[in-house]
């Protein structure tokens, strides 16, 4: 993928979208093959290179911290262990809060946040890190429509500024117009390329129909192969 590109990963539940994202983040080892990010294994990158926003944040929301504290943690990987927060660090944190429209909530205890606010806090933390690659796992799950639009617009802005973004989504209809590259996965890569082409292909159609009609069930083998041939 290239700088300034948004890559979308779509596929049914249990297809390995999230696992693929975790592998890129260096959190799980790929069961076969290897992953290179900027020509290196993810774990060998300079701290702060990758920012990852997981789907379900399994953190303790009673942790003694407010919104500002959490977003400021995004700076930690970029900082010398003993260096105090510089003006630049503080500016970046404030800008990230502003970008997510969390400025008014900066002193709010994290235990007091709504689901959408929690998600925005974590996206703000990822942006405050000034990453070179941003990974988002279904960032719009569980947020209201207005937040979703604002979030996607913001990410699009970052992409326009040159930040490569990889994002999983279950929103196939929006995916078609939103991403520069689209990857369809179901335990293996079924299609990857220009969204319009992928959209035309059976891989996309098969999964869309499948998701709409069968919910979480898996594609049957024939559908698989048909989709794969078409792709």
């Amino acid at each position, binding site marked *: 993928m290239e700088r300034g590109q948004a890559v979308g990963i779509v596929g049914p539940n249990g297809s390995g979208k999230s696992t693929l994202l975790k592998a890129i*983040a*260096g*959190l799980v080892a790929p069961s076969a093959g290897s992953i290179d990010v900027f020509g290196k294994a993810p774990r060998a*990158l*300079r*701290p*702060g*290179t*990758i*920012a*990852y*926003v*997981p789907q379900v*944040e*399994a*953190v*303790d929301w*009673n*942790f*003694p*911290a*407010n919104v500002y*504290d*959490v977003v400021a*943690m*995004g700076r*930690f*990987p970029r*900082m010398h*262990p*003993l260096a105090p927060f510089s003006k630049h660090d503080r500016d970046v944190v404030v800008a990230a809060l502003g970008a997510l429209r969390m400025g008014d909530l900066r002193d709010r*205890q994290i*235990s*007091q946040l709504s689901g959408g606010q929690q998600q925005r806090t*974590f996206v703000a*933390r990822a942006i405050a*890190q000034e*990453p070179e690659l941003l*990974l988002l796992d279904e960032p719009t799950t569980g947020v209201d429509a207005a937040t979703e639009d604002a979030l996607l617009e913001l990410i699009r802005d970052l992409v326009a500024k040159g930040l490569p973004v990889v994002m999983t989504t279950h929103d196939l209809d929006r995916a078609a117009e939103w991403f520069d590259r689209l990857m369809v996965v179901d335990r293996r890569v079924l299609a990857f390329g220009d969204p319009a082409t992928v959209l035309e292909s059976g891989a996309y159609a098969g999964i869309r129909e499948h998701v709409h009609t069968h919910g979480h069930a898996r594609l049957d083998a024939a559908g698989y192969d048909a989709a794969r041939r078409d792709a």
Partner: protein
Amino acid sequence: MSDVLFAPFQYEFMQRAFVAALVVGTLCSTIGTYVVLRKLSFIGDGIAHASFAGIVIAYLRGVDFYLGAAVVAVLTAIGIGFVNRRGNVSLDTAIGVLFTGAFALGVFLMSRLPTYNVDLQGFLFGDILAVSRTDIVVIVVLSCFVFIVLALLYRPLLYTSFDPVVAQASGVPAAFVSYVLLVLLALTIVVSLEAVGIVLVAALLVTPAATAYQLTSRFRPMLALSVAIGAACSVAGLYLSYYLHAASGATIVLLVTAVFFIAMLVRRRRNRPA
């Protein structure tokens, strides 16, 4: 009043006891902040019990008890970290099995000694009045080491305490940091054994931090208040035990426990959501 304050200091062993109480109280409540936030209190208790085997083995072999306790405590801490990361066995089960086993080994070995051993018994409940000049040196040196490492790892420790997964993705060595913390916890426990003993050290690790947790809403104030409570209660508890002619370790722990419950009432009255 000044008589009451200074009377205990006429004895050199009391002077040493106060230094030990202050250092151990500060150290335990500092690392205890991470123990509470990372939910390691059961691990702390387990490491303390396991170290008893190390103490008895060191005694049998004529080695310094600090060495025996430190080796066993650090090995157990690393073993626990390993089990925790692999996650094949449920962590509390592993701790329950391993640590009671190690503790039983210590008791078994001690019971086979030809004479009933008061020194070893002392480690169960601690004897801060028996702290020697050498003990003070060991306590202070090891404490300084722990404080320095904690300061160097302040940000990685804070980040991984809150969100280890995202911290790791952004390049923070989360596994390394958690192993280092466990080793520091083991050393803290070893340093505290003489002062408060195996059975009570977990209280000094957990209670001041748990008290501070209830009264604060951000990390740094929590850390500061935890240290203040731990240090103050350790010194005050030692005074109390002197005048009440009671066991000092137990008095200190009773005092922090009382402060914990007062904090709970204060918080309830303020009806603060958190």
